[in-house]
């Protein structure tokens, strides 16, 4: 199969390319950008005039809900959502049922995902057995089975000794440890940011120090053990400042922010909107602004969707009883473009946050357009508006704070391994 994508604005964040050009694909791989290779006869031509052609997006936190939570979503439904959002590589956290703590489970998930032939799936293995926080998982075995890193998802490690041992053991093999910084004792049963809105609505609150105390612990243990640490879903201005300081000290720390947090704040909870019930909680406006700046200056390495499909009934409950989480696979691109436009950031720089930089965090070969690599591509119209509606979202979950809103930037085609897996 030979595919020609012609006249598109080709953007490759890794090389810095941003020019109108043609992309030539043979047998699932990019063989040329620009000049037509010899004896190339396209079987299929995609006219990308007025469209952006960029690497398939790499989303480092996507809940596929398999195994065990198929009533919320299935691999089939979420893979359709992924490619509809231009995402061709994704990492899934271990908080399935059972959690991804055994090589057999990971192999089965990889196998199921591969047979669907859409986005590439990179599981994050559980750091502790059952995510229970007391016994380590067989990390080396899990790595061989396909895990790219190890973490606890939103389940907190209560015992600092276990945290230290886990980081020590992981660093033996140079595995990356992913942690969402939250001191469970401080956050307790809180459901909203400890600020004006929680005070007004009478919602049990989570103070910022729940995050900063945990970052401080993690960073100190990372320094002690030499472990590579990735901090997931940093949510506060103070948290960003601490990550910045750790990086300035030369510690091997990276971090991400989930895309909702660079646009929303506690104010969006409004009158108890359960679609804004997220973990960590949406924080103050000054926190949101610090996240936007931290992402721009590189303190925050990448953006994830933190895609979390939740069934409708679990959201139709009083705020504190509703299940936390929002979907994001199909909104990630538009919301990054929105941030880039508002912050006056060039497209080629913004897209790095969801392509080349994300692939670097995962340590996988993806997120760039070099010759000879798998033709994973996202082709989108940067000017087209679309309305976020339950009926048009492919994900089984419809839970997003952006429901009913118009967003800019529409995916038109997605290719994975040179196969057209989505067409608008």
């Amino acid at each position, binding site marked *: 199969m030979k595919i020609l994508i012609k006249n598109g604005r080709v953007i490759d964040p890794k090389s810095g390319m941003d020019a109108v050009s043609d992309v030539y694909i043979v047998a699932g791989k990019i063989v040329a950008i620009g000049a037509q290779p010899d004896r190339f006869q396209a079987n299929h031509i995609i006219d990308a005039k007025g469209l952006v052609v960029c690497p398939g997006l790499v989303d480092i936190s996507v809940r596929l809900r398999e195994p065990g939570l198929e009533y919320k979503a299935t691999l089939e439904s979420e893979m359709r959502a992924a490619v509809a959002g231009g995402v061709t590589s994704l990492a899934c956290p271990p908080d399935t049922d059972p959690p991804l703590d055994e090589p057999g489970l990971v192999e089965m998930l990889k196998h199921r995902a591969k047979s669907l032939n859409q986005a590439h799936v990179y599981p994050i293995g559980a750091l502790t057995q059952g995510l229970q926080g007391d016994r380590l998982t067989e990390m080396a075995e899990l790595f061989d089975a396909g895990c790219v890193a190890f973490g606890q998802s939103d389940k907190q490690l209560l015992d600092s000794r276990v945290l230290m041992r886990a980081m020590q053991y992981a660093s033996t093999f140079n595995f990356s440890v992913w942690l969402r910084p939250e001191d469970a004792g401080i956050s307790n049963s809180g459901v909203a940011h*400890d*600020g*004006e809105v*929680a*005070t*007004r*609505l*009478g*919602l*049990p*609150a989570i*103070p910022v120090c729940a995050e900063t105390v945990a970052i401080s612990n993690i960073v100190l243990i990372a320094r002690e053990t030499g472990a590579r640490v990735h901090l997931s879903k940093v949510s506060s201005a103070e948290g960003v400042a601490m990550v910045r300081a750790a990086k300035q000290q030369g510690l091997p720390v990276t971090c991400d922010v989930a895309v909702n947090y660079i646009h929303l704040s506690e104010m969006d909870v*409004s*009158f*108890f*909107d359960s679609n804004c019930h997220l973990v960590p909680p949406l924080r103050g406006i000054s926190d949101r602004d610090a996240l936007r700046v931290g992402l721009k200056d590189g303190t925050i390495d990448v953006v994830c969707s933190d895609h979390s499909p939740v069934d409708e*009934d679990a959201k*139709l*409950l*009083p*705020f*504190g*009883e509703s299940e936390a989480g929002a979907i994001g696979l199909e909104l990630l691109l538009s919301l990054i473009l929105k941030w880039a436009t508002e912050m006056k950031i060039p497209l080629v720089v913004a897209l790095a946050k969801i392509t080349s930089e994300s692939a670097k965090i995962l340590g996988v070969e993806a997120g760039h357009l070099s010759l000879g690599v798998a033709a994973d591509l996202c082709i989108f119209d940067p000017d087209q508006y679309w309305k976020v509606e339950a009926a048009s979202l492919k994900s089984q979950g419809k839970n997003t704070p952006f429901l009913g809103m118009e967003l800019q930037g529409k995916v038109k085609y997605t290719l994975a391994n040179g196969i057209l897996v989505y067409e608008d």
Partner: protein
Amino acid sequence: MSNNPQLNKGGELQHLLTTEGLPAPILLNILDTAESFVGVPERDIKKVPLLRGKSIFNLFFEPSTRTRTTFEIAAKRLSADVVNLNIASSSQSKGETLLDTVNNLSAMHADMFIVRHSQSGAAHLIARHVKPEIHVINAGDGRHAHPTQALLDMFTIRRYKRDFHNLCVAIVGDILHSRVARSQIHALTTLGVPEVRVISPKTLLPTKVDRLGVRVFHDMAKGLKDVDVLLMLRLQNERMLGARLPSAEEYFKYYGLTQEKLARAKHDAIVMHPGPMNRGIEIDSAVADGKQSVISQQVTFGIAVRMAAMTILAGN
């Protein structure tokens, strides 16, 4: 969702969920209407036929005797049919969701739901999902709001102090967990009380509570100086377990209302409490039963205020 979910398109009260965001004329209308109901129990026939043929459902997802009873009496004095449901002990334990329960009851042609729930926002959720002809009154949701309690407090204050515009009102106790305090604060500031104080240890105060328009005090002696109205709050025993307070004894010593501390307030200050009281913890018996206490009058006025709220909602 940014527009006020309590008001209909004409700006009239559709649901009574919180005192926050309600214009003063709406609050005053409830108080004025309540005045006309105060005398009803003294008549030969203790009923008025205003809600005859209406079905009012008391939906209590959290145990309550006092509030449920006052709503029941209020509804009956208005000649409505009242159904009491203690949901904590029935369908919720069988797995039925909150909205399923509400939908089932709507199908029985309810006209009004009186809702109490342990979660903040429960009444908002129900109000958002009921048919447009059904009205919802929040009888207490989590820590969020308890508007009829706050309105009966306002009614009581007006009865004794007449004008809101020259008062200093102190709310004393566990502000953090109190839906009553939040509703009182919004009602007092809306009705033009120039100084609203909260007096509490830091562990029982929510973050940025000053943004609600109150002055914060940690010292009872200072906070009660020249106060016209004292609104005491109930202290739950479990606050000692959550490491918020060391002991009931220490709390009483520093934040319990005694005659001695009350002497700091104006000589004609009134003392109120939403009940049920913990005597010897937040309030001394001598004060609770003393001549400045209007606590039992609050209960009486509570029925009139709830009658007023129901009547106004049913008419909108």
